[in-house]
């Protein structure tokens, strides 16, 4: 068990990276507390798997250091780092029984057989594998195999952290939810640091206490699920998290005030006119039809169960808003109001901090 610190980390798969695009990881400086449940969230190709492999030791970063507590482990091999990893596709040793699979990491480390047995039985109980212990691992279903992978991580007593690389990719939808709650439950029981890589926001937000959102090799925001939802630091986060994502609307800045297609908007932060490309970000949840506000034309209504997603146009701005089931959607002369405290100005994609304005 340890606190994990990534210090000044950069990585490129090329021997001589010259421009920005050559870096798979541009710059990272992060620390993860012992026993936390973290998620690394980002679209495919954003560098999450690279980062995970650097933490587990399968990759050595081109630049920077990794610390477990105060120890520099950058140059250590995976088994010396005391890390467990669950991969996207279940890895089991086909010819062994489930019991032998779980016992494998312990036997490799020379643990005495009675201890191995006790430990394996304990972990099998936790992961619901007890009834299958004597079966051949190759005969199990995908979720069973993924449990074995997980079990091989949990069974070791020396593990600093368990890493998950999109572990639910090949699991049937109805079992995904079950396995995810199992993970959450196990995290509470064993209190190990768990780092979960995914491109699925639901998985990330339900599993983790803290989510690290990445895009093209950079960390864009680290925060609790609520923070990510309510106060995205970057338009990418706003857009990536939430369904539908945040509205990002180009605006003009004049005298510290924001104008949407000529209409002044109240926002929770201020910007000066030098700010570069400026946009207003507001989530569809915080826009509603009102008597006073921006005149809009309704272009599409999509029913999403308890609410509807309504697409509207104001001049050439496309805006989405959510309307609860049963509420009226005006057909003509509609106007919308945006909550000023949830409207924020972004300059070049990044949130302008209130203090600095």
């Amino acid at each position, binding site marked *: 068990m340890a606190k994990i610190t990534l210090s000044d980390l950069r990585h490129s798969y090329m021997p001589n990276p010259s421009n920005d695009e050559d870096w798979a990881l541009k710059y990272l400086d992060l620390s993860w507390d012992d026993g936390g449940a973290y998620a690394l969230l980002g679209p495919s190709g954003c560098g999450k798997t690279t980062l995970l492999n650097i933490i587990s030791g*399968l990759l050595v970063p081109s630049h920077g250091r990794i610390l477990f507590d105060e120890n520099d482990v950058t140059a250590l*091999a995976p088994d010396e780092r005391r890390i467990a*990893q669950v*991969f996207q596709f279940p890895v089991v040793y086909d*010819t*062994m029984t489930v019991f032998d699979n779980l016992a494998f*990491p312990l036997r*490799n*480390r020379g643990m005495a057989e009675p201890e191995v047995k006790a430990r394996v039985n304990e972990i099998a109980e936790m992961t619901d594998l007890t009834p299958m212990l004597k079966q051949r691992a190759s005969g199990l279903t995908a979720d069973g195999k993924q449990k074995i*992978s997980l079990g091989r991580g949990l069974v070791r007593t020396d593990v600093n952290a368990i890493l998950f690389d999109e572990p639910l990719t090949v699991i049937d939808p109805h079992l995904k939810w079950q396995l995810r709650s199992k993970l959450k439950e196990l995290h509470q029981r064993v209190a190990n640091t768990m780092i979960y890589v995914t491109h699925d926001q639901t998985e990330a937000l339900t599993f983790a206490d803290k989510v690290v959102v990445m895009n093209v090799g950079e960390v864009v925001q680290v925060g609790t699920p609520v923070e990510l939802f309510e106060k995205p630091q970057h338009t990418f986060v706003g857009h990536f998290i939430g369904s539908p994502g945040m509205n990002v609307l180009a605006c003009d800045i004049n005298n510290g005030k924001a104008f949407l297609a000529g209409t002044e908007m109240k926002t929770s932060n201020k910007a000066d006119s030098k700010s570069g490309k400026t946009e207003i970000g507001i989530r569809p949840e915080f826009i509603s039809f009102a008597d006073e506000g921006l005149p809009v034309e309704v272009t599409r209504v999509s029913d999403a169960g308890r609410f509807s997603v309504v697409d509207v146009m104001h001049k050439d701005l496309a805006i989405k808003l959510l309307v609860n089931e049963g509420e009226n959607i005006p057909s003509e002369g509609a106007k919308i109001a945006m909550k000023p405290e949830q409207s924020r100005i972004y300059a070049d994609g990044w949130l302008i901090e209130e203090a600095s304005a």
Partner: protein
Amino acid sequence: MNKTVNQKAWFFVTPVLILVAFNAIIPLMTVVNYSVQETFGDNTFFWAGVLWFQEVLNSSRFHEAMGRQLLFTFSILAIEIPLGVIIALAMPRKGPWVSVCLVLMAMPLLIPWNVVGAMWNIFALPDIGLLGRTLNELGFDYNFTRQIGDAWFTLLLMDVWHWTSLVVLLAYAGLVSIPDAYYQAAKIDGASNWSIFRFIQLPKMKRVLTIAILLRFMDSFNIYTEPFVLTGGGPGNSTTLLSIDLVKIALGQFDLGPAAAMSLVYFLIILLLSWVFYTLMMRDEEQ
């Protein structure tokens, strides 16, 4: 469920049936025909029953040829399979050397069998061949045309040179199909190189190795051209394998009946042993 009757299918199946009939079924039936008859020339035949089969199964000549055949086949399997796996493990998985290795490996397989025999015959000649001359210069009394041990040594070496590549290529195909995650998981689990081989690589190679063993078994049991060109079955009868003996009986002595009976026994033995191999190796596949 109603099955529609579609007579068109016959158009597709018939050509294949005719082909198979001419190249397999009819020749085999001719052999069956000969195996139960006796002839004194003039193209007249008499019913002989199981006489030829009794003769073949009781002949010490057949027993000896069979013994040599089994010795040959199991020797080359015992050498080629482990050697092929070792070479496949040593081959690079990525980079420019992959294609170089693959081409080098494929080369012996491309050479016609009689050429392989002729090449090795010249290569091993004790007075002018590179191998034979070198061995003699080094002080070994090597002469594959006179000494039984040397003949066998050359025969086995030739087959290993010719066919190990096949095992290598098959094993290599099995190895490269293993996803990286397995090696990474094994590293994380602290597995030794032996454990990685035993629990990841070997199980993943099992299917292709089964194919390799079956192919090498059947091919080496049928082998004719190479030993015939290399040693002609000699010195004496010491390298007369089953197929060479069969040709001697059928074409040398023109004993069609005994040759046909021997062919059938030979064929059934290959079939039986192939089935035994396959069943043994696939035994724990199903559960």
